[in-house]
């Protein structure tokens, strides 16, 4: 991320009621607090490990802002119900942004423990959608 984009983001943030802005991307995460002099930027030297050690499960979060759909709008059965066995990369949910549908992928082979977001509701970036038990 370029430093001038951070300044631009800070300027935009100052004009809003938003308290905290968090951005994360490959190798970097940025956290800006409204009213604080301190912003933090963390550069991660290496990409995070593909299989984070989380014995209690794996949370799949919304990859974008949109309306969370558990099933394709033409279908009635959800892409991934609790108990379903998933293969890495398969679509387990959808984010609808207007006419556009973006997939939510299974990050690894896993079993669905729970669906965390209510289908058909708008969710923000990073909202937990699924809890998975990695295989």
């Amino acid at each position, binding site marked *: 991320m370029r430093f001038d984009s951070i300044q631009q983001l800070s300027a935009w943030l100052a004009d809003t009621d938003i308290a905290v802005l968090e951005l994360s991307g490959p190798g970097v995460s940025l956290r800006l607090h409204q009213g604080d002099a301190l912003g933090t930027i963390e550069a991660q030297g290496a990409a995070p490990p593909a299989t984070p050690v989380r014995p209690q499960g794996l949370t799949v979060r919304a990859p974008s802002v949109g309306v969370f759909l558990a099933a394709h709008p033409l279908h*009635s059965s959800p892409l991934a119900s609790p108990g379903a066995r998933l293969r890495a990369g398969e679509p387990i949910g*959808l984010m609808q942004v207007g*006419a556009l549908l*973006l997939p939510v992928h299974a990050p690894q082979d896993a079993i669905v423990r729970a669906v965390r977001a209510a289908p058909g509701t708008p969710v923000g970036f990073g909202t937990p959608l699924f809890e998975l038990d990695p295989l």
Partner: protein
Amino acid sequence: MIEIMSASALATVQDLGRCDALRWGVGTAGAMDPLALAAGNILLGNDAGAAAIEVPVFPFQVRFTQDGVFALTGADCAARLDDAPLLPWWAGQARAGQVLSLGLPRGGAWAASRAYLCLAGGVDVPQVLGSRSTQLRGAFGGFEGRALRQGDVLRAAVSGSPAARPTGFGLVPPALALPLQRDGVPAMRVLPAAEYSHYTEASRAAFWAAEWKITAQSDRYGYRLAGPVLEARTTVEMRSHGIVPGVIQVPSGGQPIVQMRDAQPSGGYPKLGTVIEADLWRLGQAPIGSRVRFIETTWEQATAALDETDAWLAEARRLVELARHQRARS
């Protein structure tokens, strides 16, 4: 490149149609669901009018002979790439040797009958009289002027690495975004045509009130409908005159025929009405044996409906371009 594996006939190469050749007596041809064709092309970043394969008979299989991207729209056919299920109205990529299979259309939230397979840059066939659509009657255009056969090999107009064209996203079918039903039955808006007033009041009322069954004698040339018998007050005899897809003719038996994309460009039967251009895709997708209804409309409403579908396409293109841009960067 793809190779057709199915023996089933009737799949054809179609674009948005040969719309400037009516003056030479050449029918328009073109996709029966132009909205699905345009949406599939948008998913790949093609021109909305690029040529695709229209599939009306299932199952249907093609094999990719080299890596390539594709989009599938239209009827939801429980498609698979080798063993992996594909979402409907989706852009994906295939590696050389993979087989794309379309099964029977599923009912679900939208009963449709034709699927569209779009390729990068469109299906590469020569343009004839301004279009790549197959003109079956004249046996020109499309792929060698005929329906596709087992063993035919078709090329995408743009080759190269699939990485250059991001995929892995889809569109909500416009049947859900722009629904039109009357009493739970798919409906199409109709403009009364020149001979409308020749029909008895009871027949005109029955035309709007009835459910019309799409008979087995329905195809790309025309849809023969079954319902109440429509009676003219006087016998209407006319010389042949120009007609276009959407025109509803009533032969002497009193059962209407809706001209579809392969209709001949002239006819002499009296015309009761015309399915508006913006709703022809709804009829083009209505399966044989299903029922439809007609809603009386006006010229202003008909053009507004066309603006509405154009706006849906423009919004779909804007959102897909954003998704493509985002994927190309990440």
